[in-house]
């Protein structure tokens, strides 16, 4: 929030770091504290605090205007259930439901298995399993490769002391041959 509302102050603070690094800092613009001037100032400036205050002012103005000109009477009653008898919590939309359209648009990016109940199902149930293609395509094979490699390398450490001595012996001979 602070960074959003007071960018100019933070940018000038960072500017000192840039100067210390010997790079070219911001031009010493004389913009008022509430204004954020980009480098070529002609482009477009932005004053977050003033913007927020104006919008809030307009909102408050509308509230007062409506309250003043018209009335504030409120009456409570049941939500419109469009003919359905009993609305309960289970019928409420879930987050997954909320994301369904976007997921539908980006279908190819998700490896999604969906089980839709057919109208003739005795016990219809709906389930969806979403997996990240990258995880299936890249990470799992990579993990499998590392595990397989680890198993093969584990054979090196097979417990017999004569094998270990042989490793030492062979390294010594190879290095000596290399050195000649």
């Amino acid at each position: 929030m602070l960074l959003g509302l007071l960018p100019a102050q933070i940018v000038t603070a960072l500017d000192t770091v840039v100067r210390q690094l010997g790079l070219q800092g911001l031009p010493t613009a004389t913009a008022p504290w509430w204004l954020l001037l980009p480098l070529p100032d002609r482009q477009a400036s932005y004053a977050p605090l003033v913007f927020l205050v104006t919008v809030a002012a307009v909102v408050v103005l509308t509230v007062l205007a409506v309250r003043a000109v018209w009335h504030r009477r409120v009456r409570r009653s049941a939500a419109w259930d469009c003919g359905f008898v009993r609305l309960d919590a289970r019928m409420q939309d879930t987050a997954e439901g909320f994301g369904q359209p976007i997921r539908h648009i980006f279908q190819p990016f998700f490896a999604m298995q969906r089980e839709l109940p057919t109208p003739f199902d005795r016990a219809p149930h709906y389930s969806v399993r979403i997996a990240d293609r990258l995880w299936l395509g890249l990470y799992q094979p990579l993990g499998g490769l590392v595990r397989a490699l680890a198993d093969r390398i584990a054979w090196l450490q097979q417990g017999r002391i004569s094998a270990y001595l042989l490793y030492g012996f062979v390294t010594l001979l190879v290095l000596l041959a290399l050195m000649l």
Partner: protein
Amino acid sequence: MNAVTALEWFTQVLEVITALAAAPLLFGWVNQCRAWLQNRSAPSLLQPYRSIRKLFHKDAVLATNASPLFRIAPYVIFGTMAAAAAVIPSVGTHLPFTPVADGIALVGLLATARVFQALAAMDVGTAFGTLGARREMMIGFLAEPALLMVIFVASLLSASTALPAIAEQLASQAVGIYPSLAFTAVAFTMVLLAENARIPVDNPATHLELTMIHEAMLLEYSARHLALLEWAATLKLFNYTCIGFALFAPWGTAHSETPQALLAALPIFGLKLLVAGGGIALVETLSAKLRVFRAPEFLATAFLFAVLGLLVRLLLGA
């Protein structure tokens, strides 16, 4: 930063008031054109004003489980739309508000309005509210990049993202054929139609809950809240048309804050509104409503046009 003169404040206030007043008029005019084009007898031009006034007098009926957010949201949405009107240069371009917010801040403001609308829709928890919110978010999710691309292409031409500066730059440019602007204009109209729930994406006059997007979110509202939201919707259409004028038809807006210039600019602005309203109605009657999951393709083409405009601008330099 030249001192902000009183006249500039005058133009600013004038713009907001014209927006508030003219928005329902534009909405009424579009409905009238549509009716004529579909050779139906048109409702009167002032019908939106009458319905808004009627709603303001009714008692507000709130759902039992409605939270305070439900009651505040209409005011916030209306407030943001009014503030957006202040940022967009409809009549004059010398606005004190220019340094405060540029095009991108404007898109942010519209996004906040959309967020509040979606939250309010989901607040009561009825199936239709969430249905509408979900679809609105989908549309918004796809329309925003296209809108930003449009503003980006326009700012490429005029080296500034502040809408008044773009308008001034384009107005003073020699009139010629700019293919990049043409493509971006097409993209912008498609975004306008999608964002304001016009025909190809959502039918404003529909009563079929399953097909609604914008209307589904307002189902739970009544009386003054509904009035505010209706008015905000008309204001949103008005704002979008003003953005369209600023980016693609900036001639005739007053480039100085003197009263005579403003007075001269008003009739031209009225004429532009009439033409735009007629255009929207024509497009609506010519096209049929798309299935909800065809809307992404529609908006993807909009984005494609905007990017095409960008490429043409960069490659051909026009």
